[in-house]
């Protein structure tokens, strides 16, 4: 026997369930209760950088869109700073860099508007390519899933990104890269998340 370590243990996760909207997006559940719901404006009005839209589906193992998902986004601003005391530097007033997105109950489509983030420092003096951190919860997901969305038009820096390069299977890296198109002059990135099956998205244990 030895002395006991007096660490606590993390509270276990439980699924967000089908009614996550009541707590985190009550307007979508069908009622109005708070003075403001959190997470609808990711970048705020003053953020520098390119304004973009991101859209997609979350697809289950049967190939069907999942229609009761909540995603959270956490991202740096165009200068590569997170809105946090340890985030690397100043951000614009009103830039939180965090958002909540829910899928349409009928179609499973989700989408949000933000600014394209800049590169951020990686471990051991590497540079991480611009990316969005995503966290996915839903009924049937027991522990929230962490993934990242990278930008197809950043091929050069994606090629040296330390996280993409840690993924042993080069063909799976493509599951994290969103294609860019223009719609009415606005860049739109398409990012489908496949929970299971062919082209299963890479998820991370961070």
């Amino acid at each position, binding site marked *: 026997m030895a002395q006991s370590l007096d*660490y*606590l*243990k*993390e*509270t*276990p*996760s*439980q*699924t*967000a*369930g*089908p*009614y*996550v*909207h*009541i*707590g985190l997006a*009550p307007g979508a*559940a*069908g*009622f109005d*209760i*708070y003075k403001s719901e*959190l997470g609808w404006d990711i970048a705020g009005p003053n953020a520098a950088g390119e304004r973009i839209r991101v859209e997609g589906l979350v697809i289950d*193992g049967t190939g069907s869109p*999942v229609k009761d998902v909540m995603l959270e986004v956490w991202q*740096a601003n165009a200068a590569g700073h*997170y*809105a*946090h005391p*340890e*985030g*690397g530097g100043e951000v614009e007033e009103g830039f*939180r*860099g*965090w958002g909540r997105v829910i899928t349409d109950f009928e179609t499973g489509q989700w989408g949000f508007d933000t600014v394209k983030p800049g590169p951020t*420092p*990686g*471990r*051991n*003096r590497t540079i*991480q390519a611009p990316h969005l*951190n995503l966290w996915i*919860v*839903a*009924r*049937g*997901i*027991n*522990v*929230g899933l962490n993934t990242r969305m990278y930008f197809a038009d950043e091929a050069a820096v994606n090629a040296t990104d330390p*996280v993409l390069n840690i993924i042993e299977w080069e063909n799976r890296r493509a599951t994290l890269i969103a294609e860019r198109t223009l719609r009415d002059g606005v860049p739109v990135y398409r990012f489908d998340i496949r929970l*299971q099956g062919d082209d*299963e*998205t*890479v*998820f*991370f*244990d*961070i």
Partner: protein
Amino acid sequence: MTTEAEFYQRDRDRHPPAYTPGYKTSVARSPRYSLISLENSVGDITGPVFGHDDIDPSDNDLIYNYADAGQSAIGERIILHGRVLDENARPVPNTLVEIWQANAGGRYRHKKDTYIAPIDPHFGGCGRTMTDAAGYYYFRTVKPGAYPWRNHVNNWRPAHIHLSIFGTGFAQRLITQCYFEGDPLIPLCPIIQTVPDQGAVAQLTAALDLNASIPLDTIAYKFDIVLRGRRSTLFENRLEGN
């Protein structure tokens, strides 16, 4: 003076695995490949910061936060309170805690809930608050009812309150559920049975707390929440390199 580095690795043996066939919905929604393990970088040790301007002080009172003037929610009046701590047993101050739940009859105020139990016109079913400097939080609400759900046809969810907690870094982000001491449905619930460790199930079960109850008014349950702890950088290996 030490600074803080990455979060402790998540103990996946205490969390439910992704694929838990007793909880049928997980079957088609569970990744089959292993998660790719990453050392934390800046986007993981940071997370959104909220302030008291983001919420109203009354958002934590579910008995009244959706009730018409002079009315209140129907049901057993309870206080749910506790502390948000990290694995180093340090309080997590000024962090956002959000909850949602069914009403006393087991019915959610949600356009997708069609259970026969009635909606309570004076109960919304959600609340939010910030922990104080000591990591303490509290809500007043009604005890939610048990309700049936379509998994096996005779499955019933024990009374539970959903909680969403942030912490200081996105790697601490957590959604969980709080159950109530003594509920005979707890060991029968397929969602609770996804948790592989009985000690972990106990950690999800709020204790009856008569000391915190308000005599002749409201009964209390205590539910502490533990988020991942962070390592101190004693010598080396800072996130950005040395």
